[in-house]
């Protein structure tokens, strides 16, 4: 009987092996090989040397910090704004369907296109923001050339694009909360603010955590936005782990180290996402099923 179970699962397992396990194992192997221009792009075994290099690579740790900073800032902003937008869109407003559609547009836009748009918006001195500032007689803001500001510009662009995604997920969550719970709460004497705290937020927690999980995974792997908006600059101050791994493979032609970098950032991502996933399971168990 047991072999039949495996037989039935075989197609799914084969697919997972092919697209997930095989590349991962290949990268594990590659991380123990030197495969650069110097080796004629042929793999040569060098053991754990590249892992040691990773451990001592200041740029890796700087990029880790920058990626975490970007992820933490953009994901928290998106969660907060997404919640506000979802709450607004959940109100019985006239033309709500149209508003929902419009609010989704930034998310539907290809990242490269929107990043190009934001690069123009942030342009110094010709972008619309700086032109407006100049017209008001204020100084220009060096959005893309000041390391202290540029990472925030990237966060701003990412927030603009991805808030709708969070809002959509949370809106779906809000709509699972029966209206009579709010009526019961109102009769119990709850103000709208208390109802938000006591009813909405606890019941929305699983959805918040799902959105958090999705967004964290995406933000920690951020590549295209940074590549197009800043190219990792100025002075590498916005470079993400994914971008660094990409540069190693595609620009420095150091495939072995690129694999090591990818696995290193994969480990960080896995750690953070599994924490979020555990939190999600914990909270959904805490809450039981919805009626």
């Amino acid at each position, binding site marked *: 009987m047991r072999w039949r179970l495996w037989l039935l699962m075989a197609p799914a397992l084969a697919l997972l092996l092919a697209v997930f396990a095989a590349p991962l194992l290949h990268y594990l192997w590659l991380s123990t090989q030197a495969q650069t221009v110097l080796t004629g792009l042929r793999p040569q075994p060098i053991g754990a040397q590249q892992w040691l290099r990773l451990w001592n690579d200041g740029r890796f740790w700087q990029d880790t910090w920058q990626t975490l900073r970007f992820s933490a800032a953009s994901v928290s902003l998106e969660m907060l704004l997404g919640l506000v937008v979802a709450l607004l869109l959940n109100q019985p407003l006239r033309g709500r369907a149209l508003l929902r559609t419009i609010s989704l547009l930034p998310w539907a836009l290809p990242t490269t296109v929107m990043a190009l748009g934001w690069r123009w918006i942030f342009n110094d001195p010709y972008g619309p923001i700086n032109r407006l500032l100049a017209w008001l007689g204020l100084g220009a803001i060096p959005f893309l050339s000041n390391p202290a500001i540029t990472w925030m510009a990237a966060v701003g662009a990412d927030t603009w694009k991805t808030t709708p995604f969070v809002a959509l997920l949370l809106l779906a969550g809000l709509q699972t909360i*029966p209206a*009579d*719970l709010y*009526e*019961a*709460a*109102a*009769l*119990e*004497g*709850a*103000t709208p603010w*208390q109802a938000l705290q*006591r*009813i909405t937020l*606890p*019941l929305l927690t699983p959805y918040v955590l799902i959105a958090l999980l999705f967004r964290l995974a995406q933000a920690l792997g951020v590549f295209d936005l940074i590549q197009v908006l800043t190219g990792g600059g100025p002075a590498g101050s916005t470079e993400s782990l994914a971008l660094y791994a990409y540069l190693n493979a595609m620009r420095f032609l150091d495939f072995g180290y690129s694999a090591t970098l990818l696995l290193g950032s994969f480990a960080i991502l896995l750690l953070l996402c599994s924490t979020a996933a555990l939190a999600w399971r914990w909270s959904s168990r*805490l*809450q*039981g*099923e*919805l*009626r």
Partner: protein
Amino acid sequence: MSGSISDDDGFKGLELRQLSRRVDNHTLVDQLSLTVAAGEILAVLGPSGCGKSSTLRLIAGLDPVSSGDIRLGGRSITALPPAERQVAMVFQSYALFPHLSVERNLSLGLELRGVDKAEIKRELDQVLTLMQLEGLRQRKPAELSGGQRQRVALARALIRRPALFLLDEPMSNLDAQLRDNLRAELRTLLRSTGVPVVYVTHDQHEAMGLADRIAVLREGRLQQLGSAETLYRDPANRFVARFLGSPSINLIERGATQLGLRPELLELADAGSAVPAGWEALEGQLSHSEWLGDRVITHVQCPGQATLKVLSREAPASETLQVRWRKSQALHFDARSGERLPGSSDPHTV
């Protein structure tokens, strides 16, 4: 706000004055006026869409009133938000908070009103004991049976010591047996609160078994308000006559008039029997009979009439039957409007 001394009319119960709710061009509640005394249970009865739940929502303050006044304890509460009306409501779905334990479901309202912890604990213990929920304190609503959820919903309403109790079909999610068992219990419990109770239902048995008086609604308008007995024996119109009673009342076509005859007031005889003085009769064919254990419902097909239902102790002996009744026991309705016509006395007093 409302409720100045001069506004107080001294009536301690609930009073609806010309209460209406219109949405767009649709009238959900139409000029509804009634009173419910303190300690009285009023059932609001009607088919779905008759405005009974809308009425309840108006009283609770969940929907805005289009016109009219709601008065409780002698003062107008029409303009007050739900939280300030001192109204407790049991929802059809129970509307228990799924993420909170039984205990926290009950205490939330008190917490929000700033009642102190010791007081909350005292009230909780008392109500949990009364409703036999002590063992379920820490359970979540999803871990309770239907009957237990209903008790929690009732307990949540009781613990607030409301000035008015509203119940929206609280039994409709329970199975029939449990419903029958709970009716008397619920009646005693609701009576003990000493406040007006408005109980919305579409189930006539529930209304008759629970309530002191019944208000029958149709399309948002009050059809009749009275005791179950009055409504049954002396209905104001055909709608009320048909809505109460099971099996439902027989309507016999007689030109512009319809005769209303309760199945238990019809008698069966062999076809061709002599009709006694003061009686009337129709003859027809036995269609089928339903055996109920203590009674039999006999369906008789008379020419030109809907099938007549006769409730009797014995099953009919033959296939062709005479159905007869005392003339004085027939209710007369206008065939077109359904209004009750004079000339029909109380059918049970001969």
